[in-house]
């Protein structure tokens, strides 16, 4: 058993320990150590449109961002509130239609419809999901999986909002530049906004509810209200994404409730690293372009795509961010026992 006599131990780089918010930072080195990754991310995102070859890839970036926001909202709900929602499509669809209706029926311009859609959609989703809030775990997941199908069928059956044809001829963003930066800023704001939010006292409540809602109740806190709040935040984000999608394609239709919108963000979260909020964004930055690159394979595309997904999950089951963070904040060495 001589091989067992040594073991690999992980050691935090000093700075991490000290920068747990308890101790002030010492030097520029440490400051940069902390801020560098964030800075790189922001700068990278902002520069993306320029790095992209040609309009097409810029468009892809917009799509990436839309999925990123969706993934963010999923990650927030699932890993900070404990509500696993498979209803991404529900949010996208609701938001998409809100924007579509506002624009094509009331001729409200995109820069207004998007925020409006976020709020209206958010409220709508929250109200509709309200009765489901007591549900737990898989049950919640499945109900949220059902909702988008349900909406689609409603619209089809009652033939409202253009029925199966959907709403067409919706205005697009003023310019592709505006579109680009709108979505990119949106992602960054939500990303850092959420990261800040979950560490506030109110944010902690959500985590607490996830860990043990009984105890939260016993602390005299009405958990349903907080869950509703969380759902509102998440769905508003989702709806905003949906609204953007609508305006990018100048169209909204029942297929905005399609399963893909529920699955892909989750996939992104999984490979990016669950519960890190940054992870999902990175996940989308990988997955969406990959799926575009694979287009030339025609029918095989999805097969490859799925295989890549499985591969990722197998070999980085923790997610990219987990891994990255650990490498960044700890170093490993072999020690004698």
């Amino acid at each position: 058993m001589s091989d067992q006599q040594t073991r690999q131990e992980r050691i935090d780089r000093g700075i991490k320990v000290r920068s747990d918010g308890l101790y002030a930072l010492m030097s520029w080195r440490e400051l940069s150590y902390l801020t560098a990754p964030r800075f790189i991310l922001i700068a990278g995102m902002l520069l993306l449109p320029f790095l992209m070859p040609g309009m097409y890839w810029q468009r892809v970036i917009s799509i990436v961002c839309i999925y990123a926001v969706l993934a963010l909202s999923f990650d927030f709900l699932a890993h900070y509130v404990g509500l696993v929602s498979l209803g991404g499509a529900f949010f996208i669809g609701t938001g998409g239609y809100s924007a579509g209706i506002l624009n094509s029926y009331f001729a409200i311009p995109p820069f207004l419809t998007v925020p409006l859609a976020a709020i209206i959609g958010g409220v709508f989703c929250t109200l509709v999901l309200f009765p489901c809030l007591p549900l737990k775990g898989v049950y919640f997941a499945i109900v949220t999986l059902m909702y988008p199908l349900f909406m689609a069928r409603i619209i089809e059956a009652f033939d409202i909002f253009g029925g199966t044809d959907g709403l067409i001829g919706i205005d697009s963003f003023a310019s592709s530049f505006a579109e680009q930066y709108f979505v990119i800023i949106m992602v960054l704001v939500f990303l850092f906004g959420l990261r800040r939010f979950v560490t506030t006292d109110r944010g902690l409540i959500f985590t607490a509810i996830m860990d043990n809602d009984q105890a939260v109740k016993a602390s005299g806190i009405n958990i349903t209200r907080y869950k509703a709040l969380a759902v509102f935040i998440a769905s508003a984000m989702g709806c905003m994404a949906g609204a953007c999608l609508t305006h990018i394609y100048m169209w909204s239709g029942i297929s905005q409730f399609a399963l893909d919108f529920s699955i892909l963000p989750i996939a992104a979260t999984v490979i990016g690293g669950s519960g890190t909020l940054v992870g999902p964004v990175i996940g989308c930055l990988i997955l969406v372009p990959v799926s575009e690159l694979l287009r030339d394979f025609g029918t095989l595309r999805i097969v490859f795509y799925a295989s890549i997904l499985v591969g990722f999950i197998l070999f980085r089951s923790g997610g990219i961010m987990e891994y990255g963070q650990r490498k960044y904040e700890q170093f490993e060495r072999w020690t004698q026992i």
Partner: protein
Amino acid sequence: MEILVYGTINSVSLALMGLGFAMVYGISRVPNFAHGALYIICGFVTWTLFQKIGLPYFFAIIFSLGINGILGMLMYRFVLIRVRGMNISEIISSYAIGLIILEGLRFGGFRGMTYTLPVFMEGSLMIGGVPVDYHRLIMTIIGICLVAGLWLFTHYTKIGLALQGMAQDERAALMLGIDSDFMAMLAMGFGAILAGVASILILPLGNIVVEAGYNVLIMSIAVCIVGGLGSWMGAFFAAFIIGYAQILTVVFIGSHFQMVVALLAIILTLILKPSGLFGQQKELEERV
């Protein structure tokens, strides 16, 4: 009368779809989103064995069921085992596998409308003035037997009980000498076979088309969630609720509301009974 007959038939076929999923989840707590794919592939394998290679129908079925079982096990052994306990990862990876299978089939040329399996028994008979063809009867009967059998299996046989324990607390099961990984693999195998059985029973009534895979997945999830996860009985009753909801709307409201009502039924059941018809998860979780 016709409502009764077709309601029952419809419900049973739903139940059949759901069983496999319920089984796997109930036992390995893996939500097997590749369920639909397994269902479809079994159909195609049978078709190939029967139409192309020309095995007798019966053997074709047996073989393809076997193949399905093995497929399920492999899926567990090589992929799912790596993400045990990480529910979301499980969903995604199994769904991805499902995609691979389905789209793979489509790429492999299994598309269009020419794939059909013969029914077990031609002809039909009248039940209370409603014509029902034999195949549907056979399907219904087998379905019911299957559910009953499963119930007995999980509550009275050693393996069944072990599987149950596994599902609830893997580590505790380990302490009692139950090899969890083997069991889970077994469960996946079973699940896949059940999916296969369902497809063998249901597909002859229609064509084998890849798209069906997705609907089957959704439906089966719905069924066994409403029933209360891991409770076959629940799944069975849920199937009846949904099944009848569908038929009734077809008859009384108009068939393009069928899905609407079905989904509504699902959502309402869950809102009213947060852990499904038979599940007790919620009460258990909240026991302090």
